[in-house]
């Protein structure tokens, strides 16, 4: 049954990849959606069965086959469903289904073969993501981990004829390689240290040990694993690929780069909570990096003009929150935020996609405005998402974000709490800046003429906003369902139910933080105030008094430039890493080592073989009896030897 969950989308992939050229758009869309929806149904049934189990032993395992056996080391292709992966598969298949449905409309202008290709990738992604979250050991997880990376690359570069898209795809892939290098090292370290790759066995092995007070083996391993997580989940210093990944189709951004794949790092840490709990040093680093990323990305998000990039930085920022939660040991809070975030961030992306779709590819906020009346469904659903992410009470984001901040504070990381709170403010500000710029006011054409010089998206030649169509039915359905989810998803966490459900997954060590009711209430109030303050600031500067915003921008022109250029991180990376590597590779490795040494060895081997053969071929006379004679000579010698002995 568990196998069915990833298998169904995989079958969908096979169908679309194999016969995509021959079937109509409707057929390939139906296959893909059918596969993922069926997978969702199966997941739901599986989770229902899981919930029916005794809370103490809430897990379903299914050994599909033995993958590797070598000596007493054996890795099975085993799937395991426990509360944590239950949350994940529901998010992946549920939100995945909505995004598939949304895509049938969004991608409708693609030719049928491209359409099928898109859906085959999407299905493949779902399959790998499900393998990732269902895997019961590091190897299976790694299979999914790399698989989603591959799909991410394929989908970011989906419009591969566009230079920037294919570059972005490569960037995503290469940056992820750096992270994966750390991940693989971490996994190898685990194998060396514990002799197994199974999550359960590792957890059981490490549970009796006391946490490392100094930086030791476990800390090193977890740190390496965290390097992998920073790559996959776009944290400092490897977050740079995510904003560029917005070159992909918007539903892809929603599914892969907001709701699911990028949360893999968070999931991975949650999955190995016991392990990480034994490496407090690493956890501190995780918390700091998460918090820094959250703040850092939030500031960049403030000034971006591309609607999707704002959302991308917002995603990075929110992921930072999740890592902050993980770092302070609030695993359940982190996963809870992962879950709510999946709803509202997918919603925001899909909403932005609806806007882009309506404007025929326009992505620059400065060319929008006043869409509120023309795209009512999009507006209201988008607003719901924005409110949710900003942390307004009653909406999903409030519950989870507040939980994280509360846990951070109560675990004693006051500084981190302060930065998190500030980020929360920033979140509200940039989110509502986005809402106001896109939907309120009047339509503008303020952006520098070629907003996207290399723009080649289909039908990009804007049919001058004569009459804009709101989201067509499939998109509207997805938006509405997600909007409802963004509002109500948070209630799942009321009274610690969500946390309680997840408890078995993080079991033995979830630090019982003394829940001081009064502190919590105070913190909650602070959060609410901050959220509303952020919305207020945004309303003031971007709706009521846009001139003030311009003034502010002029006053802090340097800072603005710095932010707009994303702290020049890409440029720094280019100068510090990319160029030196390129120069070394080209003049040193290629022209020096490869041409002289490697080619020299290869050619030398060739020449040696040729020369030797030239001598040896004289032995091949073709005379059968000469061969027979040599054979018999050997027989006589061997027989003689044994007789002589």
């Amino acid at each position, binding site marked *: 049954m568990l196998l069915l969950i990833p298998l169904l989308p995989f079958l969908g992939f096979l169908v679309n990849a194999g016969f995509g050229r021959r079937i109509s758009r409707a057929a390939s869309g139906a296959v893909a959606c059918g596969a993922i929806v069926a997978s969702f149904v199966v997941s739901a049934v599986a989770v229902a069965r899981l919930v029916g189990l005794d809370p103490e032993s809430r897990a379903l395992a299914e050994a599909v086959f033995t993958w590797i056996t070598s000596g007493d080391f054996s890795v099975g292709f085993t799937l395991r469903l426990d509360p944590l992966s239950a949350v994940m598969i529901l998010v992946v298949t549920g939100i995945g289904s909505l995004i598939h449905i949304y895509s049938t409309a969004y991608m409708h202008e693609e030719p049928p073969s491209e359409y099928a290709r898109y859906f085959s990738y999407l299905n493949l992604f779902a399959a790998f993501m499900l393998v990732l979250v269902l895997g019961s050991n590091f190897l299976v997880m790694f299979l999914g981990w790399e698989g989603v990376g591959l799909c991410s690359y394929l989908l970011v570069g989906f419009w591969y004829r566009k230079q920037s898209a294919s570059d972005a795809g490569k960037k995503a892939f290469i940056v992820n390689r750096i992270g994966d290098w750390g991940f693989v090292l971490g996994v190898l370290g685990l194998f060396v240290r514990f002799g197994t790759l199974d999550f359960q066995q590792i957890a059981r092995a490490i549970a009796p040990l006391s946490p490392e007070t100094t930086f030791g083996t476990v800390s090193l391993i977890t740190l390496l694993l965290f390097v992998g997580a920073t790559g996959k989940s776009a944290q400092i210093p490897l977050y740079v690929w995510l904003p560029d990944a917005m070159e992909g189709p918007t539903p892809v951004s929603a599914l892969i780069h907001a709701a699911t794949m990028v949360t893999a790092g968070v999931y991975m840490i949650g999955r190995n909570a016991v392990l990480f709990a034994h490496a407090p040093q690493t956890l501190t680093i995780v918390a700091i990096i998460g918090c820094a990323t959250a703040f850092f990305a939030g500031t960049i998000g403030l000034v971006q003009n591309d609607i999707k990039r704002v959302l991308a930085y917002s995603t990075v920022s929110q992921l930072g929150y999740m890592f902050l939660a993980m770092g302070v040991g609030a695993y359940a809070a982190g996963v809870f935020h992962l879950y709510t975030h999946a709803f509202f961030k997918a919603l925001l992306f899909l909403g932005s996609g609806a806007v882009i779709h309506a404007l025929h590819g326009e992505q620059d906020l400065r060319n929008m405005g006043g869409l509120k009346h023309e795209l009512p469904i999009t507006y209201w659903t988008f607003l719901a998402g924005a409110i949710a992410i900003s942390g307004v009470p009653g909406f999903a984001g409030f519950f989870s974000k507040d939980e994280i901040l509360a846990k951070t504070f109560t675990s004693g990381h006051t500084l981190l709490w302060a930065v998190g709170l500030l980020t929360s403010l920033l979140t509200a500000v940039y989110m509502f800046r986005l809402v106001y710029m896109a939907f309120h006011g009047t339509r503008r054409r303020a952006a520098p003429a070629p907003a996207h010089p290399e723009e080649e998206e289909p039908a990009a030649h804007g049919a001058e906003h004569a009459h804009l169509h709101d989201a067509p039915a499939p998109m509207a359905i997805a938006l509405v369902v997600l909007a409802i989810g963004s509002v109500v998803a948070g209630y799942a966490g009321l009274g610690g139910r969500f946390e309680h459900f997840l408890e078995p997954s993080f079991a033995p060590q979830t630090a019982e933080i003394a829940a001081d009711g009064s502190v919590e209430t105070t913190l909650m109030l602070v959060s609410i105030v901050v959220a509303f303050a952020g919305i207020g600031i945004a309303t003031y500067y971007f709706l009521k008094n846009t001139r003030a915003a311009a003034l502010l921008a002029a006053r802090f022109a340097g800072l603005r430039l710095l932010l707009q250029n994303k702290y020049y991180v890409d440029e720094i990376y280019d100068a510090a890493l990319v160029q030196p590597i390129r120069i070394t590779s080209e003049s040193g490795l290629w022209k020096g080592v490869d041409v002289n040494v490697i080619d020299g060895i290869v050619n030398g081997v060739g020449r040696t073989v040729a020369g030797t053969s030239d001598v040896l071929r004289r032995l091949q006379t073709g005379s059968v009896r000469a061969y027979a004679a040599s054979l018999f*000579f050997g027989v*006589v010698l061997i027989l003689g030897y044994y007789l002589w002995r």
Partner: protein
Amino acid sequence: MGLFYLFAAVAVLASLLVIAQRNPIYSVLLLIASFGALSGLYVMLEAPFVAVIQIIVYAGAIMVLFLFVVMLLNAPHEDTDYDERVHPLMRPGPMRFGGVLAIALALELVWALTKRAESGRFAGGAVSSVAAIGRLLFTQYAFAFEVTSVLIIAAMVGAVVLARREDWR
């Protein structure tokens, strides 16, 4: 014992002459003589079945085939190059080497056999009944027997394909 030496002498002499002959027809006939002697030895070993099928299969079928080919090609004398004209033992390098190897092999084998002191007299109780052999052949060795039939079919088809003329169609 005398009979054994008679048959052995015939077998060895005939075999030697087989390889010393220049005319393949004589080689074939001498080989048949050698087979006849071996057949006699099989009778002495109380294996009359083997003795008879030695004659039927080897002398009656395989050697006829050889004779046929020799007659068909009819080229025993035309094909004599230098090596065929000189006596086998006078031939140059490799052949002499091969001959020496053969002699060395014989010496080694005889040495190996005489190294052991005991002479290995035959105990009583030979299986000479055709019925017993047949029973074994169709029970214990049934699979091998069937495989052999497949082998024969394959050889038959192979021989036909190989020997047919190019302009067969």
